[in-house]
């Protein structure tokens, strides 16, 4: 009685054995010890071993997504360089699936390879000062330069909380193209060149002291029409792909037992018997159980995806991880007693990476506060679960069918 069903049929040479042999060929042609990093990563992309579930010619082989781990493990064992996924999470997790789904052939060919190798970092220009949870209320305008079919666009507006903007070569951008339409219908989706002279990136310092995110001012930014993703006015629909993948990216992933924040607190507990108290012990055990159950839920979601039956559990897992990261890091600050009263460094820096479990307990505690805000706040995700998963009725709304320009701001 097979318990694991593979949804997609795949040719024999993209099964586990086939992938291993492709990895061997790649390693034979490009010895990781002597090949420059970028060269190796480009060759890996061209061999279809970047993301095996992507189509051939775009870094993949059309193989089951689950088999990626086979490739990753083999390459890691061979000492091959990786693409530093923590530096390019927005590109990998959000831009790439959206480009794959809505991009033209030309866009896919242009953007996906340097996105995956990390030669080009991406950021997400969605949130605005007046449009966060209610993203569809956004006010950044994109105006067509003339009436011709392929006329380009000029963009003016302000974005905020833009992670990695200081490193980014490209951005995924949503802007209003029709202020007369109701808010969800007048939006279009673009790829924005972050080197355009009209793009100004200013650091925004966070409660951790560092500036992971930025505010981005867009003044007369020019975007060719060939950098539009999806149809004019369909940007909200395209953005759903990005946002759904964002929640998968933040919530999903396979982690070993004690792999996340709980591992940090457990290690401190084991190494520092003098800090132990009965109250902390009870709370630690409770959080350990919850973290393990949430981890198993993530593993189960992965198994569902592999079997071709994705469930709505992703939103739930993101919610659980956010709360647990906050509680566990908070517990660790208390556990550390006097040491928990100190902080490594408040110096303002602009980090290369998003770092949830690094630095000291105080940093982890503060950074975790963002987990229930970024990628959709926990309150909004609970609304989504209640309405889309449980089918509970929506609250009465006043903003749906009114032209955007008539809404209160």
């Amino acid at each position: 009685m097979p318990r694991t069903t593979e949804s997609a049929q795949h040719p024999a040479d993209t099964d586990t054995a086939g992938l291993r042999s492709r990895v061997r060929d790649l390693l034979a042609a490009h010895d990781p010890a002597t090949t420059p990093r970028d060269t190796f990563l480009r060759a890996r992309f061209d061999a279809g071993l970047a993301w095996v579930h992507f189509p051939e010619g775009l870094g993949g082989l059309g193989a089951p997504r689950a088999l990626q781990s086979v490739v990753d493990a083999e390459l890691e064992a061979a000492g091959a360089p990786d693409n530093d996924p923590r530096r390019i999470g927005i590109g990998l997790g959000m831009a790439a699936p959206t480009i794959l789904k809505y991009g033209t052939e030309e866009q896919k060919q242009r953007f996906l390879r340097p996105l995956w190798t990390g030669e080009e970092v991406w950021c997400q220009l969605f949130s605005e000062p007046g449009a966060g949870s209610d993203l569809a209320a956004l006010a950044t305008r994109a105006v067509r330069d003339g009436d011709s079919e392929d006329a380009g666009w000029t963009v003016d507006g302000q974005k905020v909380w833009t992670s990695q903007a200081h490193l980014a070569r490209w951005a995924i951008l949503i802007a209003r193209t029709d202020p007369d339409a109701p808010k969800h219908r007048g939006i279009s989706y673009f790829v924005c060149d972050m080197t355009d002279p009209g793009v100004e990136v200013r650091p925004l310092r966070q409660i951790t002291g560092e500036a992971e995110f930025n505010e981005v001012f867009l003044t007369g930014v020019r975007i060719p029409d060939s950098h539009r993703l999806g149809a004019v006015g369909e940007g909200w629909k395209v953005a759903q792909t990005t946002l759904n993948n964002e929640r998968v990216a933040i919530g999903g992933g396979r982690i070993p037992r004690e792999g996340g924040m709980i591992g940090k607190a457990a290690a401190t507990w084991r190494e520092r018997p003098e800090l132990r108290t009965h109250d902390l012990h009870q709370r630690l055990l409770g959080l350990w159980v919850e973290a393990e159950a949430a981890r198993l839920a993530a593993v189960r979601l992965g198994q569902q995806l592999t079997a071709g039956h994705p469930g709505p559990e992703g939103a739930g897992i993101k919610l659980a991880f956010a709360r647990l990261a906050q509680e566990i890091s908070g517990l660790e600050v208390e556990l550390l007693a006097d040491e928990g009263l100190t902080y490594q460094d408040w110096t303002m820096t602009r980090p290369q990476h998003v770092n949830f479990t690094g630095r000291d307990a105080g940093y982890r505690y503060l950074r975790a506060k963002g987990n229930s805000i970024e990628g959709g706040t926990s309150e909004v995700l609970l609304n989504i679960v209640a309405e889309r998963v449980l089918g509970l009725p929506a609250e009465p709304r006043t903003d749906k069918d009114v032209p955007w320009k008539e809404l209160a701001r």
Partner: protein
Amino acid sequence: MTERTAEPENPEQAGPDLLYSEAEEDLRAAVRSLLAARCDPADLVLRTESAEPYDPALWKSLGADMGAAGLLVPEELGGQGASAREAAVVLEELGRAVAPAPYLTSAVIAAEALLGSGAAADGETGRLLAGLAAGRNTAALALPWSTAPGAPLATTVRAAADGALTGRVTGVADAAHADVLLVPAAGPDGPGLYAVDREAAGVTVTPRVPLDLTRPLADAALDGAPARLVAGPDEAEAAVRRALLAGAGLLASEQLGIAEWCLAETVRYLRERHQFNRPVGSFQALKHRLARIWLELVSARAAARAAADALATGSQDGPVAVAVAQAYCSPVAVHAAEECVQLHGGIGMTWEHPAHLYLKRAKADATALGTAGRHREALAGLVDLPAPAG
């Protein structure tokens, strides 16, 4: 039953299988339709106060005709040769229906105790086990229902050299209706596990008034009751621990089923119930409460599946997986049942509405086979998170 399609070294597939197979889904559908037809919640409310809390015809259909009673027992010993994974699916459905059936006590715990006692097809123990597996008889392990898998087994019963048992055990689940009691007792050579007929001379089983109306409790008094040794000093303790571990691990699936019913029923009610000219379920304060229960269910399902899979595969990780499942699922079922009562308003407080049956079962299950706190304490040892010294 553990055939897997992927290669073990594939890290994506390693670890527990947390999904349901097609065969498991078929089994679920069969049990669910039987319970839908024969175990209506409204009838249950009436039945709980009758002299016969169990429905013998339902047990025959489920345990004997459908073969559910023998899922854990190998075919050569008269069972179905399935595993804890399938038994867990049956328990999810029994929990969803708060069905009064001696499944967990007899088909899981007693059967596992006998399996751990080296039951052989041609022996007395094997015959007893075959009777349980066929759903002909039921047995109950004579320990207080609150006993955790790792608790010290302080026996309150002594066995004489001829096997006669004397002593008293309180709060045994399903004892009043079991054909056989499996009694851990201190024998002349050390601890043993003994089988005694409930009807035998010297056995007095006195029903208690249970908090959970759907799982009767009784005290068993033994006064020189004739019994047969099932497992001697070498095996008895391990057999009892194995039985309690399986029981605790699979209780998590029952708790999952309870919580699922409570959530589904509350969602259904709040979509219909109108106050303030709108469905009550459109108020965000309530939506978030229900969404939180759904979140808990997502993790509870994963934890319960992990425990069932670990028991099915005999994984080394079994004790951890079971402790996690119990520590996590017990409060989830109670939370879901408490919210179910509260969010039904006045009707939730009535004897007539079945919500209270779920609340009582959930609350009793939270103590059964070790509280969440006991299981967390067990984890302190199992995963090396020791308590403070002194």
